[in-house]
């Protein structure tokens, strides 16, 4: 094996043409994942709350949306957004935006299930205690239920983030220069070292995902309600 090809293209793998050109590689992968995750967090929270709303129509609409998205492969959602969004909002929209939208829609649907389960998992007594003191349902959700539910959801959120990092690799199909796309480019250019190149990016994906999983473990421990007595 000859990893010279990797060292020669190292900065290309990590940041693409940046700073002379647009960000690519690992940098873009992380950028896509972080932005889409932040949006999915908000989207998942809203969808999750809507899907347990006391209004039946609202519940129905959000559940249907969640079901539809969950019944589609991510690649399909990416294609849809790739063709649909420019048709709706003009051709100027960069491909990375359509990918972020697709990832956000897709992950929001999964996130909303985590949110819903997290909220349902808080014992009924907590809500009863809170409303008994005169807190409104909104205040109860905000100050009593969600803080506990979100804490319990941290491991699932990190799981989603790790999936998200891996899912960004599908962006390569619409030509977004994230890590997998870069690897494909380098491979097509040299034609000699596919094993080295794809081994290298596999390691990178692994390291990133592993690091985040460890981070979540650490967070979980730190956020436990009681430090030892």
């Amino acid at each position: 094996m000859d990893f010279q090809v990797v060292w020669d293209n190292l900065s290309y793998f990590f940041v693409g043409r940046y700073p002379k050109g647009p960000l690519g590689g690992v940098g873009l992968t992380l950028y896509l994942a972080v932005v889409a995750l932040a949006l999915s967090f908000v989207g998942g929270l809203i969808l999750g709350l809507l899907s347990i709303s006391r209004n039946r129509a609202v519940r129905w609409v959000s559940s249907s949306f969640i079901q539809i998205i969950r019944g589609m492969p991510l690649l399909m959602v990416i294609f849809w957004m790739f063709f649909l969004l420019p048709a709706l909002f003009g051709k100027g929209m960069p491909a990375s935006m359509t990918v972020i939208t697709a990832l956000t829609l897709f992950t929001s649907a999964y996130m909303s299930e985590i949110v819903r389960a997290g909220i349902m998992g808080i014992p009924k007594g907590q809500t009863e205690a809170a409303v008994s003191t005169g807190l409104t349902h909104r205040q109860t959700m905000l100050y009593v239920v969600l803080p506990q539910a979100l804490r319990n959801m941290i491991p699932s959120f990190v799981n989603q983030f790790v999936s998200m990092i891996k899912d960004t690799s599908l962006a390569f199909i619409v030509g977004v220069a994230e890590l997998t796309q870069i690897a494909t480019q380098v491979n097509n250019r040299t034609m000699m070292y596919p094993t080295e190149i794809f081994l290298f990016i596999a390691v990178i994906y692994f390291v990133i995902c592993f690091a985040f999983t460890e981070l979540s473990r650490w967070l979980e421990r730190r956020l436990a309600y009681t430090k030892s007595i």
Partner: protein
Amino acid sequence: MIRFEGVHKWFGALHVLNDINLHVKPGEVVVVCGPSGSGKSTLIRTINRLEPIQEGKLVVDGMDLLDKRTDINKLRAEIGFVFQQFNLYPHLTVLKNITLAPIKIRKVPPKEAEAQAMALLERVGLPEKRDAHPAQLSGGQQQRVAIARGLAMKPKIMLFDEPTSALDPEMIGEVLQVMKDLAESGMTMMVVTHEMGFAREVSDRIVFMDHGVILETAEPEEFFKNPKHDRAKQFLKQILSPMH
């Protein structure tokens, strides 16, 4: 203060409250007892509409619970509720458990709310636990904090649903003592409990329920010495000497 008039409640086909008539006067302490499943919890949970009623009239502190215009959150703020399982907020410190409602609902400035919470913690004998989390407290301590939380909104009525049933025997006394002090301070209280010593010593009236019906209402002396209803006699016999 609390007036039930012909109140009925069903859970599906199950008739859990059957023609309840009861009037609790300001400052009165009423103990509710009866066999398991007789509807005691349901009865006191209707008072702050944790359980809605289907029929009859229920007026609490001048507010009609079936009236659509009644602001339920406002009414609930006037009623403290203490649960069998404490239900403290595990993510908040003892102090924040107590100050949450006054700060969010009454907009009491945090400093002032904390001072009031400390006064309540003194009252239940736990000032040193202000920064502890609920999981770091014993059951008895948790229940005393829960009582302090219930008092934080300066309620006119305190409701207790078997406040000592989840406690180890050695912790029951400390909680009952706090409740007794509260009763002596003139609080209107309704207490579901099987602590007959407390009922005899502290309560003004005892309500005996079975199958969703109030079978007997009497002053404690009368109830213990001379229960009228057969079911009450049987219940007292069981509860006072459970081995037979």
